[in-house]
């Protein structure tokens, strides 16, 4: 058919390309959440701010500042996509933020308590709060 109808082949291929483009995965939201947590514990404000959606900026700043007086590290972090909620992709994580104060480990913050919300913005996934 394509030999006889090259124009048809081009049309089919073009439609196929459009279809694939519209369904293309712009990345994994779980990676965005992991990057957010990494920036959080590294206290890299610039990287952190670039990983947060506009609607969550104010709360994210509180979260960032809340760790200012302690030393932090990540332990056993694993995140995976875990469904959707409206416009958000949900990401569930396991692992902990290890908190040290005065050189001593004082507590571990459990990252499995609440699913994270990720929002796709201009092709990138951003941390946009928690599913509550």
């Amino acid at each position, binding site marked *: 058919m394509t030999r006889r109808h090259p124009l048809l082949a081009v049309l089919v291929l073009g439609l196929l390309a459009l279809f694939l483009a519209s369904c293309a995965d712009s990345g994994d939201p779980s990676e965005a959440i992991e990057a957010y947590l990494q920036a959080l514990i590294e206290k890299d404000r610039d990287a952190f701010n670039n990983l947060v959606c506009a609607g969550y900026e104010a709360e994210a700043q*509180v979260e960032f500042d809340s760790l200012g007086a302690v030393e932090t590290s990540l332990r056993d972090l694993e995140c995976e996509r875990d469904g959707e909620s409206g416009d958000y992709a949900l990401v569930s994580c396991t692992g902990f*933020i290890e908190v040290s*104060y005065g050189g001593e480990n004082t507590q571990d913050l459990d990252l499995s308590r*609440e699913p994270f919300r990720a929002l796709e913005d201009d092709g990138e996934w951003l941390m946009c709060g*928690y599913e*509550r």
Partner: protein
Amino acid sequence: MKMNMLRRWTLLGLIALLGVPWMPSAAQELPLSRTTAEVDVRACPSLTCDVLFDYPANAPLVVEEVVSGDEVAGDSQWVRFTDSLRQVSGYIPLSLTDDYAPQRWQTQPVVPEISETVREIYQRGLELGNNPAAFSKVGDCQNVSSFFLAQFDRPEEYALGEYAALQGTIDHFAGSWERTSAAVDNGFNVASVLSPLWSDPAVCEAGETPLECEYRLHRPSIVIISMETWWGGRPAEEYEAYLSQIVEFWIEHGVVPILGTKADNLEGDHGLNQAVARVANYYDIPLWNFWLAVQPLPNHGLTVDNFHLTFARNFFDDPNRLQFGWPVRNLTALQAIDAVFQAVSTSDNEE
């Protein structure tokens, strides 16, 4: 630089007319002097008199009188003042003092005077169902139960001495003193208590901030807030903004916030204490001026790291223990809570 004598006597005269000694429970007059070195405070203006206690350098004084005595560094004048915590008058050589121009917050009293705003907050809280016999603590490492206030629920661990009148307040708030608050932890700062990330999963619901969790669990009528921890390079205005959020939360829930200044000055310019005082004054809520209380103590109540408090047990009938930061912290915090309790109780009785 010494004040000229005319100005000194004019100011002393004003103090005498006002009749307001430097008492913890009275309106605070501006201190006129401060020590320039560590100095022995004596029972009389003579080097042969008993030493009552020591004062560190930079301890503010309200000079009540200048008298003649033994010559020290070429000057025979001595100043008499009253140590508010010990309730003892003593003398130090004028040559070991200097003029002092404090910032306004530095002269606010250790134990606050209570405004009508406080009574309004408290009454609204009762209408909301808050517990008039409960108070909460919000803070960091200097508010943990190991050291702060817990002993008042353990009779063998404290003695009030001349402060026996405070026992009624201790009894009224029984159970709150040693209670572990959901809004106190090592490493907390003013932002931590506003973030659900930090709430204790053992007692708090998912999504609750430590403040929300503490309020839900305890429903206090009073909260004492003391946040010493910030971190270098961050402006005091950010600390102030977060502290304001904390205060607004409690006021919205009908809980009277008592804000405490801190003993240290790690930031170098007293920026955080200024912020604490601004927030207290803006919201017309009690300021517990702990900083002022520790000024007369050795190294102002601080250990060699100039942050942590010196420790002694809370036996207030022993004057030696009142030279340490922790007993003074616990005593003056108790006095601040008592001041609020007495004021709102009086208001209750009048209704």
